[in-house]
């Protein structure tokens, strides 16, 4: 329009809203802790300031302190302080409904009209002259979906409609409307007004310029006195949030309504005050003249003019929505916190840490007792997210003290199934964990089954087979030796990473099983980075049981697993270990796994021994990768050992595995029902006979006999 003088309709740029995250946070907290289902309207305070950017309008902003304070809320948000030049308070009202249906069903026109009436009354009773911010009174309707952390909302900035509308005589940048002296004086007056805490947040005012080019800013209530002086220019000024060069902002609408209905002025000279970098900017500010025809009926008090002002959403008459799940949903916060924690470890200490391989890893934990609970927790701490726990027991009264996933509640009413209770507990600790519980007994050799139960046992065998097949890693954490036999065999057969932890009273064994007898490292992706030493170990492997393959839990035994719980005293059967032992062993078991995953040869990696200088593993970022760790609390000592696979092993030697491959379940049933079957098969029986005839001393000091361990 550029200073045009054509009599066009004066058009106002609508107010725009901005809602700070803090507002929704406090509203949620108030709704939960204070309001409950009470949905009566809440007085709120909005903030705005003059436009301070040539291309961006200022928005009416809601902050946390826009809402009444919630005494139970912990955060200390400073309460509204008057006199802040960038936060002129504007009174508003909030209708927060309890359901989305009520939100859509609100009588929007009626609510807008009610607020418009308040403005109208404030104009007539003079309150608007004392506190001009009431002219910009606003309305907000909302629905807070606290389960999804999403908010639907709609602002209205009620404007009294002049009918017929005001017409524009002219509108120009303020800099073109004043003499140099006037402009200078005006700028100074504005800066003083804006810098005094008494006036900085008073958004409507009178601008008076006397015949000496001296400018002064006056309160609206001083209108009468401004009238008396002759030859003065009088402009009606307001903080204009709008940046547009050809339109005044929304607050002018109700100001014009006040001017024409209170002071009966037909030709209104207005000034849209805008700033730049904290100072009055007369180039951005506008001065204009509008002609008003006082609408019919405006003099009758009970009459309330029509009002408009619902904010558009991208040009459409629809509400807005915002989702704050990212900053409010505890699950998402927990996930991002956990991820950042692990990334921190990678950034700081272990650049080669492969977090993706950990988070996609599927771990099967056989046993959910002291070891199982602790292993699961440590796995989660490493970023493992997929955990399956197998156990057929129930939580007993004595368990929670040592088994860190359970509490007394799990023991009540006969006790919850451990598999179920452990999964629930893991989810409480970290909601994003994909934990599953399987209630199942693990078939054990030397525990003969009556023929009528055979089918059940076979079903269990197949389930176990499928479980092992569908996981990447298997932890053997059961409380008897013989219960580790079938899983050891199945893992050797499918070449799964297998880790065993077993406890004595004050000693423990943690070990990783070697690869299976028929495995070839050639098809392993771990071999992608091929090296000379890898080729060497391959040579060893192709030579079946040639001594290079690392042993399993049963490789050092000269007896096949039998029923170890019969004929033992109670303290031998139960958890009689030093309480610190299980957490130590569990933690080592998980660290061992992480070592395998980060070793270039994975399951085929050789066993390192502490201080072995020729090992390439000592240069790995995670340090050496032992085969076995044995520790003793009695000596507070720990050592790393290597034991290669035995070709008489009852669980992993090629004879046993190939027999299993040939006969399948039939083989397993025989092993379960006939105590000496495995020993006969593997030649252990022969071995023992010859050994006893030589009266060999089996106890060599370092390689402690596992039979000394009462396992847990």
């Amino acid at each position, binding site marked *: 329009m550029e200073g045009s003088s054509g009599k066009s309709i004066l058009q106002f740029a609508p107010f725009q809203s901005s809602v700070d995250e803090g507002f929704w946070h406090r509203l949620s907290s108030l709704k939960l802790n204070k309001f409950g289902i009470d949905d009566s309207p809440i007085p709120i305070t909005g903030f705005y300031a003059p436009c301070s950017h040539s291309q961006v309008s200022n928005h009416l902003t809601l902050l946390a302190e826009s809402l009444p304070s919630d005494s139970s809320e912990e955060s*200390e948000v400073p309460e509204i302080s008057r006199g802040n030049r960038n936060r002129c308070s504007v009174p508003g009202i909030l209708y927060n409904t309890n359901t989305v249906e009520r939100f859509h069903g609100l009588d929007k026109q009626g609510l807008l009209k009610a607020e418009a009436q308040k403005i109208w009354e404030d104009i007539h009773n003079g309150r608007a002259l004392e506190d001009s911010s009431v002219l910009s009174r606003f309305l907000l309707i909302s629905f807070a979906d606290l389960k999804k952390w999403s908010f639907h909302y709609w602002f209205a900035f009620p404007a009294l409609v002049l009918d017929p509308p005001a017409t524009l005589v002219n509108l120009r940048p303020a800099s073109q409307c004043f003499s140099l002296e006037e402009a200078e004086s005006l700028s100074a007056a504005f800066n003083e007004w804006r810098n005094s805490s008494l006036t900085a947040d008073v958004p409507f005012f009178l601008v008076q310029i006397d015949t000496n080019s001296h400018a002064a800013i006056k309160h609206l209530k001083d209108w009468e006195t401004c009238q008396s002086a002759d030859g003065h220019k009088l402009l009606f000024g307001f903080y204009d949030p709008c940046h547009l060069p050809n339109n005044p902002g929304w607050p002018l609408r109700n100001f014009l309504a006040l001017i024409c209905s209170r002071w009966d002025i037909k030709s209104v000279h207005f000034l849209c005050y805008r700033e730049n970098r904290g100072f009055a900017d007369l180039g951005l500010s506008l001065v204009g003249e509008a002609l008003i025809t006082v609408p019919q009926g405006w003099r009758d008090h009970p009459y309330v003019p029509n009002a408009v002002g619902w904010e558009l959403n991208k040009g459409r008459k629809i509400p807005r929505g915002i989702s704050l799940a990212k900053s409010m949903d505890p699950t998402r916060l927990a996930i991002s916190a956990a991820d950042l924690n692990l990334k921190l470890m990678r950034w700081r200490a272990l650049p080669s840490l492969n977090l993706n391989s950990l988070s996609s890893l599927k771990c099967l934990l056989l046993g959910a007792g002291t070891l199982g609970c602790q292993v699961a927790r440590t796995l989660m701490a490493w970023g493992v997210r997929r955990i399956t726990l197998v156990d057929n027991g129930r939580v007993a009264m004595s368990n929670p003290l040592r088994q860190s996933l359970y509490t007394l509640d799990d023991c009540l009413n006969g006790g919850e199934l451990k598999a179920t209770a452990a999964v629930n507990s893991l989810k409480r600790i970290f909601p994003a964990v994909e934990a599953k519980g399987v209630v199942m007994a693990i078939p054990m050799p030397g525990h003969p089954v009556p023929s009528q139960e055979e089918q059940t046992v076979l079903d269990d065998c197949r389930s176990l087979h499928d479980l092992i097949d569908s996981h990447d890693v298997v932890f053997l954490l059961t409380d008897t030796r013989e219960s580790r036999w079938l899983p050891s065999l199945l893992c050797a057969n499918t070449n799964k990473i297998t880790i065993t932890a077993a406890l004595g009273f004050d000693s423990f064994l943690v070990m990783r099983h070697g690869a299976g007898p028929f495995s070839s490292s050639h098809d392993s992706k771990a071999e992608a980075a091929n090296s000379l030493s890898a080729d060497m170990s391959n040579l060893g492997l192709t030579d079946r049981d040639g001594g290079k393959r690392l042993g399993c839990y049963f490789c050092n035994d000269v007896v096949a697993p039998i029923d170890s719980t019969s004929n033992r005293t109670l303290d031998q059967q139960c958890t009689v270990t030093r309480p610190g032992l299980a957490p130590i062993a569990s933690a080592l078991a998980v660290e061992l796994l992480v070592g395998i995953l980060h070793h270039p040869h994975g399951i085929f990696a050789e066993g390192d021994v502490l201080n072995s200088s020729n090992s390439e593993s000592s240069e790995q970022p995670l340090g050496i990768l032992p085969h076995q760790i044995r520790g003793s609390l009695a000596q507070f000592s720990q050592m790393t050992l290597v034991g290669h696979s035995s070709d008489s092993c009852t669980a992993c030697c090629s004879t046993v595995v190939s027999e299993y491959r040939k006969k399948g379940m039939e083989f397993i049933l025989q092993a379960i029902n006939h105590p000496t079957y495995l020993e006969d098969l593997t030649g252990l029986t022969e071995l023992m006979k010859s050994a006893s005839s030589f009266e060999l001393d089996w106890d060599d000091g370092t390689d402690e006999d596992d039979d000394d361990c009462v396992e847990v």
Partner: protein
Amino acid sequence: MDALSWDGTLTSRDFLVSARAFAEKWKEFNSAFPPWTWVPCPPKQPPCHLPQLLQQGYLSLEKICLPGSSKKGHVTSQEDVDEISLTEGEEEFEPVDNATLVETNNSLQVCYYDFHIVYSDSYRVPVLYFRGYYIDGQPLALDEIEKDLPACSAKVLLESKWTFITQEEHPYLNRPWYKLHPCGTSEWMKLLFLSDDSRAKIGVAVEQYLVSWLSVVGQVVGIRIPFEMLNNPKSCN
């Protein structure tokens, strides 16, 4: 303070001193920019065990429009917002009003950033907290913020072990904000001061701490420090 034996940290009292000095200097040399303001916060627990509690609070610079942070077309991450309200047809309940300007949609989509400098009691260094949001208040996700960061900062973030962004609860606002993790701050602050010969001689000027600190940290988020601020260490007394 002797620069050689100094460990690169600040006491909370020093932080207060440094914060005041910094805000003053910023106003002096960077008057075109909004000022940093000190936001006082009441102590969380009543000061029973500590003798005279220092004033707690943080430095705040808000609603900053970073250069190039305007977005083309507001792609609000509204995947979680119930679509009901957005897909429902427009409502016709208001009379047509020809005094309302119908804006053609060519207005700039701007993103704002808030920066807070908070003292960390455990690391004994200042920590930069920040957040970004669209003009209507919708917060920016970290990946959206990363697109806004200056190109050099992406490099700094990738290469430096000491600068990375984490999300953590703002110590005073109790809402999640992003922050530059402070774990390496004291080390590089010590290096920064030691590498400056003149400063190593005259000792560590507490007043200058935040200026130096922000000259490094600010690079990541695109806050520039006027050269004069760095070049003009006040004589320390």
